[in-house]
């Protein structure tokens, strides 16, 4: 801590931030040995994502020979950086390989096998950065693939484009390096302070800030000295700040140097401040001055498991297990490697992960110097964590909310302002892994947000689809209606034409006539129909009476049957009466075509047939039932069935006659004949089918046999009727022709 005499202390007033801790520094372990160039590893694994943003996209094929500094993967999208070849060699593969990540998962990596020549690609050096425009410098930084080397890995070039073209009032170079053990920045400043200062000047040239500060903790006197010497003659102010963890946090350093606070949810650029890391500044200098891309970095190898803890300049992509083995690390049980410092670093699950742009330290502590955390005990609400929190949060409350999964409340308590510095866990007397809880809660909240976004999108799509389906249905319905209307209109027109038909000579065949003209019903047939219906009604009523006396289960069925019969009788009666009142035309002249009788008569006859059929079925059903349950009823019902069959035949015949008579034979015969022939064929086909079914049923399904037998019988009568109709029609036609 001794400060050399010739340091010119900065006159700048500094401030303090809330909380903070003073853990054991352990920096002297590695800080006293000079940076060593790490040797070339036999294989380099270059992850496509070593930064925040979208992963880079490979532009080399497997087997390509590449030179040192050649672009291997280009940035994708606005927030992304490229990946360059750290040495010359051959691309062996592009595969999934474990990367330095707390999950220990794999990610896509380019595997480069060095050829040992270490031959550079053509570089574009630039003696004086002032000759370049700020845009050209930004382009150079982008092409060099520089991402923040402090730990987060945010693309530097993107950061150098402050949002809304806000003027950056203060540019801060973060040399605090507050985390214990890590000395990479310290060593870099001691040995290459000039490069760092030049890098900062280049960034200041791009941003044109009001002031340019370097914040460095007072535990690095040699680095301070080197910096002050290098910064002489520039407007850069080296500000020495007291050592306190985490003064190197971006927001904390801004508070210390400017007394400004970054509002919740905002970035420093929003208050006109920008922080850059020391390593980043050096990389910017090399990129602008020599055109060198970011292909190596200084990493601290420290911890008591290393015989000689030190800083090394290592090529990106070097496997960590190979690197630490080279520097004398011999794994003990349990093997414990931490990437980053003891406060904010994470345990490496796989030692074969490569060094990346953000690897500032590899810590291999012994169990004695960094014991495993003791089991967590209950929170005693001591409040030490709230005192230590540099973000002025309430870690205790956040802990309860995170643990109870009350994430909305945790969010209201500004969980996302937590910088995960670990100060609260460090001071916790119950050894609760508080930061772990916060990380988990943050992850859950992010996941919930994503899920919510996705479910909103799904809802929108679902509703859009529902609307579309409804619209299509409505359109179909409208079309159907339009068609039906058109058809109705056409039919009306035809009817109109048909009405005028009697005036025209009967020889002129009108194709629409057969369909629209009703036949003249014969009065006699209607009368018999009526009488028969009446007789049947009486029979049914008798049966009903009987049933009431003997068979209560049948009463309901029969009551319904009686009602139906009553209707039928009424219909038959009206039909007969209607026929009686208008009998003149049919007998007027056998030569002239009969006047079209009302369509309704034919309809009624058709209905009669259908009803009779239905009734027959009904009665047959009841017969079946009676056979099973009430043997006394069987005889009566059998008779009823027989009667119904004859009635049905009569009704069918009446209808058939009416239909035949409805069209003048001369006009309709050819058409009718075809239709009738078709009918016969259809009936035959149906009968055949039925018989097949019956045979089948006999073999397999005895309960169905009876029903099918009846169906066959019915079809046979239908076929007979159809054949009969056909013959009659044929004979009439031949007569006509004769």
């Amino acid at each position: 801590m001794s400060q050399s005499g010739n340091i010119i202390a900065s006159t700048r007033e500094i401030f303090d931030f809330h909380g903070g801790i003073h853990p054991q520094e352990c920096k002297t372990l590695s800080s006293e040995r000079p940076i060593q160039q790490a040797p070339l590893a036999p294989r380099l694994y270059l992850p496509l994502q070593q930064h925040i943003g979208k992963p880079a996209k490979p532009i080399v094929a497997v087997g390509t020979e590449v030179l040192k500094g050649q672009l291997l993967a280009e940035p994708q999208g606005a927030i992304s950086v490229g990946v360059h070849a750290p040495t010359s060699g051959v691309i062996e593969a592009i595969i999934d390989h474990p990367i330095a990540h707390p999950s220990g998962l794999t990610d896509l990596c380019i595997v480069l096998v060095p050829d040992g020549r270490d031959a550079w690609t053509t570089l574009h050096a630039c003696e004086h950065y002032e000759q370049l425009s700020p845009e050209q410098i930004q382009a150079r930084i982008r092409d060099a693939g520089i991402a923040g080397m402090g730990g987060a890995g945010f693309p530097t070039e993107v950061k150098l484009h402050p949002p809304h073209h806000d003027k950056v009032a203060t540019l801060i170079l973060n040399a605090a390096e507050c985390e214990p053990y890590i000395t990479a920045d310290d060593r870099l400043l001691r040995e290459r302070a000039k490069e760092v200062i030049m890098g900062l000047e280049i960034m200041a040239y791009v941003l044109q800030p009001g002031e340019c500060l370097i914040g460095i903790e007072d535990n690095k006197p040699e680095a301070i000295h080197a910096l002050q010497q290098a910064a002489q003659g520039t407007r850069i102010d080296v500000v020495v700040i007291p050592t306190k963890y985490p003064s190197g946090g971006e927001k904390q350093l801004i508070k210390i140097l400017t007394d400004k606070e970054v509002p919740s949810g905002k970035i420093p650029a929003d208050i006109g401040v920008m922080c850059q890391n020391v390593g980043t500044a050096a990389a910017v200098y090399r990129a602008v001055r020599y055109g060198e891309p970011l292909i190596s970095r200084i990493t601290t190898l420290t911890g008591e498991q290393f015989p000689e803890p030190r800083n090394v300049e290592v090529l990106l992509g070097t496997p960590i297990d190979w690197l630490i083995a080279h520097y004398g690390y011999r794994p003990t049980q349990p093997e414990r490697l931490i990437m980053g410092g003891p406060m904010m670093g994470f345990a490496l699950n796989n030692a074969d992960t490569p060094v990346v742009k953000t690897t500032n330290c590899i810590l291999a502590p012994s169990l004695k110097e960094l014991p495993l955390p003791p089991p967590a005990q209950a929170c005693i609400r001591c409040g030490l964590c709230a005192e230590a929190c540099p973000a002025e949060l309430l870690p205790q409350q956040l802990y309860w909310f995170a643990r109870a999964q009350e994430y909305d409340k945790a969010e209201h308590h500004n969980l996302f302002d937590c910088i995960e510095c670990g100060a609260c866990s460090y001071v916790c007397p119950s050894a609760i892994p508080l930061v772990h809880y916060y990380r988990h809660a943050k992850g859950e909240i992010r996941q919930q947000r994503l899920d919510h976004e996705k479910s909103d999108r799904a809802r929108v799509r679902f509703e859009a689809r529902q609307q579309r389906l409804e619209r299509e249905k409505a359109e179909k319905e409208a079309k159907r209606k339009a068609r039906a209307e058109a058809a109705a209109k056409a039919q009306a027109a035809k009817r109109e034409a048909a009405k005028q038909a009697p005036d025209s000579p009967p020889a002129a065949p009108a194709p629409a006539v057969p369909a629209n003209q009703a036949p003249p019903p014969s009065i006699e047939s209607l009368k018999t129909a009526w009488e028969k219906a009446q007789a049947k009604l009486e029979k049914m009523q008798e049966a009903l009476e009987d049933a009431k006396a003997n068979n209560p289960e049948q009463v309901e069925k029969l009551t319904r049957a009686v009602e139906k019969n009553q209707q039928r009788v009424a219909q038959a009666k009206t039909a007969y009466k209607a026929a009686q009142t208008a009998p003149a035309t049919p007998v007027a002249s056998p030569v002239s075509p009969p006047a079209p009788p009302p369509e309704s008569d034919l309809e009624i006859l058709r209905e009669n047939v259908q009803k009779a059929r239905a009734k027959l079925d009904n009665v047959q059903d009841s017969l079946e039932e009676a056979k099973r349950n009430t043997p006394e009823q069987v005889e009566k019902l059998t008779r009823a069935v027989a009667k119904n069959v004859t009635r049905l035949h009569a009704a069918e015949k009446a209808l058939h006659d009416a239909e035949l008579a409805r069209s003048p034979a001369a006009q309709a015969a050819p058409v009718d004949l075809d239709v009738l022939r078709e009918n016969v064929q259809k009936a035959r086909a149906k009968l055949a089918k039925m018989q097949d079914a019956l045979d089948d049923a006999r073999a397999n399904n005895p309960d169905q046999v009876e029903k099918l037998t009846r169906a066959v019988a019915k079809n046979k009568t239908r076929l007979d009727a159809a054949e009969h109709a056909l013959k009659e029609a044929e004979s009439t036609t031949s007569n006509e022709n004769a």
Partner: protein
Amino acid sequence: MSAVLTAILVLMGLALVFGLILGFAAIRFRVEGNPLVDQIDALLPQTQCGQCGHPGCRPYAEGIANGEDINKCPPGGEATIHALADLLDVEPMPLDAEHGEEKPKQVAVIREAECIGCTKCIQACPVDAILGAAKHMHTVIASECTGCDLCVEPCPVDCIDMVPVDEGIAGWRWTAPHHSEIIATDRQQPSEVSL
């Protein structure tokens, strides 16, 4: 006596005025639809899978608003049940196994070489996440697929697989620390072991 009468009259007058204001507000600021249904709908996962027995998430939200059980949504799982219980101030209940079990998130994938282009899956997809045309190969837009598996059953050649969503490292989240409540004397043990 007149004082009592005045008081009564004043109170009646006030009641009339406030009644008018309330009546006006009831008409002027009437809330269209049932806001509770919207709130419930917002908590449901919107997979539109129909496992709850309703043709979509909104109908189920309406069902819940009318007193149906809140444990019929397997894709939402425990988290949705808890959120619904919070919203409706009822006791959370375990997921009704009759409607299926909670599964990890899935996405439908069409084995494109086997697709015959029948469009049956397109008609089944509740969120239009399948792209294709008759007699042309179909494919699932993975980012829009809700994993409802309604497309699997209609496929005549069984070329649709439901595969768990694997976001790789980007989808990784810190797991919850397991909390073990111990008593103070237990604290000595780990260091003893390590020495």
